[in-house]
């Protein structure tokens, strides 16, 4: 190990130097971005032209020779017992090459007759049951109608309030254990389960005793001179990525090696799942993802469709592609669970929080782990914090990890409660946070964003500017903040090759979920090797490359850019060592100002430009490879999920509410964010814009609607499932901190998730400020605004 000096602090608010103990091979720390050539510069995507010109190849573009199209048969009942699945008639349909029931649904393999007898249950409308592969999509669809399934239709419940009644039909007869996916989710085992209610899971902040905190919270709430208590509800949101889930599976001729092209945010987790399910070695499954049209947490695994595609391909002896349609996306591949949370806050008269309590239910359909406690447990300096979360099961599509799982829900409740508390205490909402939140980035963000927003001129609730000929349009402002975590995935390796012509390759098995990781990889390597970014070719998205992290948890940039920089550093050292030998230098030369400078016979050599230096190599290329190490000075707590720091995020929203029609128009959002050292501000702003738009859409529009009488989805499309469009997008101003912590060789963190956490809460607080009536339930529709105004007599 050796010692290096690292800059620490927020640029513009004071930087100091600290010592870190690091492995010998660690490159020296970068100074703030202003001193760098490539890193920290707003660099357009290296693959931008490929994307906008339609040449980028997504999974839905994959067409293999002889490829068949697969379609999935889904349950028409929200709850039923299946006695028999018979695919024999489907196999006789024109163009059909294979048909099979989902084996793990039946628990036994097909016996060759096309019939199975084991009894299994379906627990939601749209649950996958069987699939066919045919030469055309139309043939496959027609054949689905010929699969015979014998159902015993059972009573069901899709309304989460009804599901809590003791008499409600049970989703699970036995206690559920919920294994998390690579994208998070999952829930603690051995929780109490009564009827459809599983829990509560009881939590306190890291390192505190849960029972003691619970007692302290109860006492403080009883004693607290000032307090608020209210119940907040959030809806079910579907991921609605532009590219649907899908996968193309192709076996080799001997049927023992599988290649898949998948729309995924984790090529290695798809590989591992398929290898495990199919019982073949990981080395014989290759997963390729050139580009992915968004995932938001729901695209980590192979999915039932992936398993079906692989099995159909094996049976048909031909490649099979299954791409889900939009309706299937809304039904069966995950969602952000709904919630009902009661938040109680107590504070001293000066605003110092004395207790935070959140108790409630998460509604993840037939899936567990629908929590929301993250913000309450992590954000404020409060001596007593206690959270109880229970799952309520319903007969509907299961949840999946979704962009900061639990946090937008949690922030919506907690941050509105803080707004209510501020009003109760006659404190400014920003001042109340200043009193209770010492997180340095958020503190800085509150200050800078409030000033950019013009927060000082905000008026009291219902007192804002009015417009419209009838004075019907009212303006209001609100703010909210969020937290997320600096997480690192240690499965992050990269290889850098320097070729004799001076060109450079970066190879790593990370994939681009859509946020554009190729570009920061090119930037950090170009920075290290002092070459123009155009010299760096980045190859990603293939499990034959060195392992890369799954793109979830906002880990990608934090995990893989240090490996890439260190690989470039190693390759550079190999090059310089080679040059010492070739040029007969006294010692290893240095790369400076884009040229190699050495000492020969005691005299400095003339600077040799990088490409000319490379031309002197005796072999075709030099290599460097590196694997992400633990954060400098941080404890490794596991292979994944290494926790070193908390990320912030503070957003200010200005809205107009039409009190005659109930329509909310978000005018602008000023967003202060941090993600360690920003590698590419352009892409970071892009992520923040996306997070805010998705958060706005969550605040005002999106909601999966099920028919309570039939359990079926009513809006499984983009017409009635409402996603914000261009005209709904406000002016967005991003204030991005350069927050140096000296924790890795790039010191980068993630941004995808923090950007969406506070948006809905900030908009809700702004709506309250505009109309003087609080809406505690998402989405904030015209119906809810009008009802709130009517009930308040306004």
């Amino acid at each position: 190990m050796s010692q290096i000096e690292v800059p620490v602090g927020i640029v513009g608010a004071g930087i100091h130097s600290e010592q870190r103990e690091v492995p010998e091979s660690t490159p020296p720390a970068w100074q703030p971005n202003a001193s760098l050539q490539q890193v920290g510069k707003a660099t357009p995507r290296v693959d931008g032209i490929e994307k906008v010109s339609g040449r980028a190849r997504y999974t839905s573009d994959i067409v293999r020779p002889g490829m068949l199209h697969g379609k999935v048969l889904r349950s028409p009942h929200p709850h039923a017992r299946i006695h028999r699945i018979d695919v024999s008639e489907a196999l006789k349909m024109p163009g059909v090459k294979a048909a099979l029931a989902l084996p793990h649904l039946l628990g036994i393999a097909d016996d060759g007759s096309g019939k199975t007898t084991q009894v299994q249950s379906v627990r939601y409308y749209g649950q996958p049951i069987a699939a066919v592969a045919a030469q055309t999509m139309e043939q496959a669809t027609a054949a689905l109608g010929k699969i015979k399934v014998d159902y015993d239709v059972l009573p069901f419940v899709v309304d989460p309030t009804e599901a809590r009644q003791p008499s409600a039909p049970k989703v699970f007869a036995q206690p559920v254990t919920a294994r998390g996916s690579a994208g998070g989710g999952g829930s603690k085992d051995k929780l109490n389960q009564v009827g459809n209610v599983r829990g509560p899971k009881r939590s306190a902040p890291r390192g505190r005793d849960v029972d003691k905190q619970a007692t302290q919270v109860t006492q403080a709430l009883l004693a607290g001179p000032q307090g608020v208590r209210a119940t907040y509800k959030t809806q079910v949101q579907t991921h609605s990525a532009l590219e649907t889930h899908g996968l193309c599976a192709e076996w080799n001729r001997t049927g023992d090696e599988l290649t898949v092209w998948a729309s995924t945010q984790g090529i290695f987790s798809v590989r591992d799942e398929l290898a495990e399910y199919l019982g073949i070695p990981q080395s014989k499954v290759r997963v390729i993802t050139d580009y992915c049209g968004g995932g938001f947490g729901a695209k980590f695994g192979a999915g039932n469709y992936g398993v079906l595609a692989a099995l159909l391909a094996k049976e048909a002896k031909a490649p099979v592609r299954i791409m889900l349609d939009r309706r299937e996306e809304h039904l069966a591949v995950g969602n952000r669970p709904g919630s009902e949370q009661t938040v109680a806050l107590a504070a001293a008269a000066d605003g110092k929080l004395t207790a935070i309590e959140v108790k409630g239910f998460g509604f993840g359909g037939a899936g567990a782990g629908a929590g929301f406690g993250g913000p309450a447990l992590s954000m404020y300096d409060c001596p007593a914090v206690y959270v109880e979360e229970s799952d309520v099961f319903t007969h509907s599509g299961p949840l999946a990890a979704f962009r900061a799982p639990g946090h937008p829900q949690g922030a919506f409740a907690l941050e509105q409660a803080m707004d209510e508390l501020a009003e109760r205490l006659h404190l400014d909402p920003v001042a109340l946070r200043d009193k209770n939140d010492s997180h340095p980035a958020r503190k800085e963000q509150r200050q800078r964003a409030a000033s950019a927003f013009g927060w000082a001129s905000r008026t009291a609730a219902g007192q804002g500017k009015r417009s419209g000929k009838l004075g019907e349009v009212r303006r209001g402002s609100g703010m909210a903040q969020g937290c997320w975590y600096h997480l690192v995935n240690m499965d992050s390796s990269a290889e850098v090759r320097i070729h004799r012509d001076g060109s450079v390759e970066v190879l790593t098995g990370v994939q681009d979920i859509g946020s554009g990781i190729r570009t920061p990889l090119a930037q950090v390597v170009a920075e290290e090797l002092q070459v123009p970014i155009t010299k760096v070719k980045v190859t990603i998205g293939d499990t034959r490359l060195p392992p890369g992290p799954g793109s979830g948890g906002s880990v990608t940039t934090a995990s893989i850019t240090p490996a890439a920089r260190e690989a470039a550093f190693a390759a550079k050292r190999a090059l310089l060592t080679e040059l010492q030998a070739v040029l007969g230098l006294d010692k290893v030369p240095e790369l400076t100002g884009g040229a190699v400078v050495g000492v020969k016979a005691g005299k400095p050599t003339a600077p040799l430009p990088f490409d000319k230096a490379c031309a002197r190599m005796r072999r075709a290329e030099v290599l460097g490879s590196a694997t992400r190490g633990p954060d400098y000075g941080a404890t490794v707590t596991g292979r994944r999920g290494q926790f070193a720091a908390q990320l912030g995020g503070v957003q200010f929203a200005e809205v107009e509410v039409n009190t005659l029609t109930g329509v909310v128009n978000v005018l602008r959002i000023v967003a202060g964010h941090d993600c360690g050292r920003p590698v590419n501000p352009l892409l970071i702003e892009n992520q923040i814009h996306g997070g805010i738009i998705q958060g706005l859409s969550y605040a005002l529009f999106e909601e999966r609607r099920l028919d309570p009488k039939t359990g079926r989805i009513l809006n499984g499309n983009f017409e009635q499932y409402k996603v914000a469009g261009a005209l709904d997008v406000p002016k967005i101003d991003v204030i991005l901190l350069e927050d140096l912590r000296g924790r890795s060789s790039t010191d980068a963190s993630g941004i995808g998730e923090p950007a969406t956490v506070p948006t809905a809460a900030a908009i809700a607080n702004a709506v309250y400020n505009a109309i003087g009536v609080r809406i505690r339930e998402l989405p904030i529709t015209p119906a809810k605004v009008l009802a709130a105004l009517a009930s308040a007599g306004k």
Partner: protein
Amino acid sequence: MNSFTLTIPRTIQQTLDELSSNKGGPARLKAGGIDVLDLMKEGIEQPGRLINIRLLDEKPQALRDISEVKADAIPEGVWRLLPGGDNGSPPPRRDCLRIGTLTTLTELAHSALIQSKASALSASAAQIATPQIRQVATLGGNLLQRPRCWYFRSADYLCAKKGGSVCFARDGENDFHAIFDNQPCCAVHPSGTAVALVALDAVLLLQTPQGERFARLSSFLVGPSQPGGAVGRENRMEEDMILKSIWIPSPAPGEQSLYRKVKHKQSFDWPLAEVAISLRRGTSGNKAPEAVRIILGAVAPVPYRARTAETMLLQSPSLDAERIRKIGQAAVNGATPLSRNGYKVQLVSGLVQQALADLFL
């Protein structure tokens, strides 16, 4: 989607022949195809034959054209149905705007003639769906499209409108459904241009094998509970009919029109409510309203005329914010909201107030 044969006739006569041919099952006309392809993809309709009339053109009365026709050249059938012909006497002959059925919504929205002489219609066309859809969707198709009720649009539900016995929305999820005339089906009429055109006293020119037919749009559109209505249809279109053109009287001095719409989402959304108002004011003195039509959209099976509000407006000595509020409330007189759409009563009232404020304040 089912398999179908596609024919592309060159003339109206060929189209009529195709429509009345019995070979290959019932035929469906396709213009822009926005709605019919949706219905086929959703499995709601399975026509064995599609007749593509999008490129059909007939001179001199082009099917994709907007023009102003002088009073003496108005077809008699149209003239007879123009407003002002009460008490047995024929209406006065007057200039009309003629719009071919294949005119796209973009053309309608961008037409200077429509903007200046039928602003409610151009405003309604401009706010429908998305720019891409407006580029392809035709006026005829917009008027004749089927409702967007999510039970009707789902093959999972055999609802009353599709020949079943139940309206699932009535006791189900009915947020976007009718607050007037909502028995036995509570789907709302989906056409924004219909709301504007009813306010503008539009007359339709239809071609049948027996010759041309004429109808006021207001009586051509018919709700299930109205005389001649049926739950399975929204209008009096027959299977062998072609809608050729839409006629609206050119405005006389003092006449103006306005259209306003409330959408939850401003990009690509169906209306929560719409209103179109056509108004004639006196040309001298205080320019008091002399005639008015207030037509509400997305509230009933067909565009709904708010007669009480119209009467109140005409009886108003002057219009201030308070009077406008009262007229807005009168516009929703007699509403019978369902379990989840009570908010629409308030919203429609608010929308009418905003529209009246635009006109009078």
